[in-house]
């Protein structure tokens, strides 16, 4: 356990140490009227010209939201079309057929919403063209959209008496070119040096030592991996995602990929602090997120190391030490062991990443409940790129509202009065998705069509269903992967992902529009301070009370029952 705990501590320190300077850099990216030198500036202006936008002209929240919606719907259709036509297009060395329509629809929704839920096995379904131009492009673009919207929302919070939030095209371009591109090239370079393939040659065929034939799937993996991890995407090249050695060959790549999951979401908290000139407040938000992250790892790691009932009863040796990591090794890889798999599972569900380096379906009842709860609270423990922090804003507003009720004053946040309109937007943003998730789970679990997707028996099967809609509704994308694809589950998932992406996004933009028009009121003795530890406790408490209590009854039917009866 000691070595595992040390690895987790080192992870936390390195993450914070990298996220802080990155956050300050990202604040500059979105704040500067001109960014980069002459050459980069010319490129940016060129992009704006071909798109037909005046970079100086800003949009109000409705116009910004409309552009985001049109842009995303357009790409939704493109991604669908490429998958359906891949058999007739180029870059298809392994002769993959057209993707089945319901799966293609689900996959299109999945990738344009930054979810990356995968109802297909990548290496055996998608042509290289689909992987690169449909899926990997969205891993950049949908992440860029999330970051752009966050930048706009933060501007609404920081500005006073302002009608506009920024220009979507400029924000998108800068997210992609100044943040995601350089970071993913650096990471991809390290990954390929460690063993991630990057080739357009098709499958390799090996003549094994015992005289058999083995087909080995390869492809342009490394670059897709990098953006998959950095953009909280999670959709891998291979079916088993980052458990596959070709995606994640060594303990070192595993460390870097785990850092990459939370790097930008953690950095955006510091970016927020700099942009609204409230660095202490940002540190408190970071502290609240970090506390919830630490609790998650603190539960998942011992639970997995303790092992499952089946393994303990079997009599095999699951004790750590003497040349093995022990514990629940079902669907886990030797080179990662228990600690690094539990850490990854926590990080990937805190962020809306959803990549995995081991199978969540095979986690113990308690260990598997951690990712489920992490996702259910709305992907706000660092959360998705962009979407995580604006999701957290809803909870912050509810928190200051609750504090205001306690002392009988109109609540304020960063100098803005929080009134009925803001509370309504925050409530919609925080409550819509969990309500939808529970409804879809309930319908799925009482219908024959829904039950057809369940793989494991008894309570675990319920957890699979709950996890599937929680993951899709919150745009995470990880799975209790036994949950099967049917037309019904694919279509339900499509609805969950689209509504789960856009309802909170629209609520956040509307909130920013409302806040941007307000004046700043000077803080007084009665103002609830949001830059101290009391705020951290209140914020975590509000999250636990709203989302936590909503998921609790469902948890009792799944992981709790499973944990109790064995």
């Amino acid at each position, binding site marked *: 356990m000691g070595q595992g705990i040390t690895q987790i501590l080192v992870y936390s320190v390195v993450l914070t140490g990298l996220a802080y300077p990155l956050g300050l850099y990202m604040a500059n990216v979105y704040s500067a009227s001109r960014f980069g030198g002459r050459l980069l500036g010319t490129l940016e202006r060129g*992009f704006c010209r071909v*798109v037909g936008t005046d970079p100086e002209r800003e949009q109000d929240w409705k116009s910004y939201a409309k*552009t985001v919606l*049109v842009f995303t719907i*357009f790409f939704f259709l493109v991604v669908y079309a490429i998958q359906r036509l891949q058999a007739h297009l180029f870059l298809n060395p392994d002769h993959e057929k057209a993707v089945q329509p319901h799966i293609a629809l689900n996959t299109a929704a999945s990738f344009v919403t930054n979810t990356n839920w995968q109802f297909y096995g990548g*290496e*055996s379904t998608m042509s290289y063209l689909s992987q690169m*131009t449909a899926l*990997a*492009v969205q891993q*950049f*673009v949908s992440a860029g959209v999330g970051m752009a919207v966050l930048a706009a929302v933060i501007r609404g919070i920081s500005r006073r008496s302002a009608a506009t939030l920024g220009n979507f095209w400029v924000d998108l371009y800068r997210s*992609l070119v100044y943040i995601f*591109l350089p970071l993913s*090239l650096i990471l991809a370079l390290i990954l390929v*040096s460690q*063993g*991630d*393939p*990057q080739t357009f040659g098709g499958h*390799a065929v090996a003549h*094994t*030592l*015992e005289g*058999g034939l*083995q*087909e080995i799937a390869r492809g342009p993996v*490394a*670059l897709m991996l990098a953006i998959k991890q950095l953009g909280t995407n999670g959709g891998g090249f291979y*079916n*088993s995602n980052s*458990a596959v050695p*070709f995606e994640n060959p*060594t*303990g*070192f790549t595993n*460390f870097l990929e785990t850092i990459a999951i939370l790097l930008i979401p953690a950095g955006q908290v510091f970016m927020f602090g700099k942009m609204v000139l409230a660095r202490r407040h940002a540190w408190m938000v970071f502290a609240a997120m970090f506390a919830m992250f630490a609790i998650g790892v603190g539960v998942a790691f011992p639970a997995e190391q303790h092992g499952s009932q089946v393994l303990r009863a*079997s009599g*095999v040796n*699951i004790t750590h030490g003497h*040349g*093995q*990591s022990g514990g629940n*090794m079902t*669907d886990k*890889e*030797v*080179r990662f*062991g228990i600690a*690094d798999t539990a850490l990854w599972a926590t990080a990937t569900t805190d962020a809306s990443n959803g990549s995995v380096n081991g*199978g969540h379906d*095979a*986690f113990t009842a308690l260990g*598997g409940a951690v990712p489920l709860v992490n996702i259910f609270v709305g992907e706000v423990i660092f959360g998705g790129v962009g979407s995580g922090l604006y999701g957290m804003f809803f909870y912050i507003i509810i928190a200051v509202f609750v504090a205001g009720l306690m002392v009988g004053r109109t609540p304020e946040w960063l100098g803005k009065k929080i009134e009925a309109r803001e509370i309504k937007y925050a409530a919609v943003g925080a409550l819509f998705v969990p309500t939808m998730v529970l409804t879809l789970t309930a319908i799925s679990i009482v219908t024959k069509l829904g039950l057809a997707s369940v793989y*494991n*028996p008894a309570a675990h099967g319920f957890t699979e269903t709950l996890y599937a809609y929680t993951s899709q509704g919150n745009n995470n994308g990880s799975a209790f*992967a*036994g949950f099967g694809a049917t037309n019904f589950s694919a279509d339900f998932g499509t609805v969950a992902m689209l509504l789960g992406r856009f309802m909170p996004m629209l609520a956040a933009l509307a909130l920013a529009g409302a806040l941007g028009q307000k004046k700043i009121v000077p803080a007084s003795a009665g103002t609830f301070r949001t830059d101290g530890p009391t705020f951290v406790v209140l914020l975590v408490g509000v999250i636990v009370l709203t989302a936590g209590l909503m998921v609790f009854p469902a948890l009792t039917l799944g992981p709790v029952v499973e944990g109790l*009866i*064995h």
Partner: protein
Amino acid sequence: MLRDLRASVVAGVVLTLAFGLAVPAAFTGFAQVAFRHEANGSLVTVNGTVVGSSLAAQSFTKPKYFHERPSATSPAYNAAGTTFSNLGPTNPALAKLVAQQAAAVLKLERPYNPGLTIHDIPVDAVTPSGSGIDPDISPAYAALQSRRIAAVRHLPLATVRKLIEEHTTGRSLGFFGEPGVDVLQLNIALDKVGGS
């Protein structure tokens, strides 16, 4: 609306060309030059023939070879169709699988390890891996198999143990991850040392 649509189409084309084709093509070109071996799947050759990849398990059933962890892919160790087993922690199918694997290990190893019991079998030997092609086994599982290998190949046990040590990948940079033994590389090395 129309303005946004036109902008989206143009941006869509530009971004797809840039991030879907230009960047991957340029990066692939670079990787093929700078990291040729890794970028093509870390393939392992013996006498000019590709025998596998150091990053993928393959099927070993003969007693003269170290065996891999169980695999849930179809067929087993399918490096073009990776998958988890997805067997939940209370699933009776998992109990059955573990019992079968443990019995198979005992049957195979006991002739060379008198007194071996189920309590000596490390958990990775009886559980499916995450990818189905986990190239590593734990040092404990390698040690368990070493007596069989030495006996079948008529090699001194010390030689086999030394080979295991040489093919044990420690934690990366001495710190990250867990130690493992690359089974394919180890078996190739064994074939070179010989024994019958």
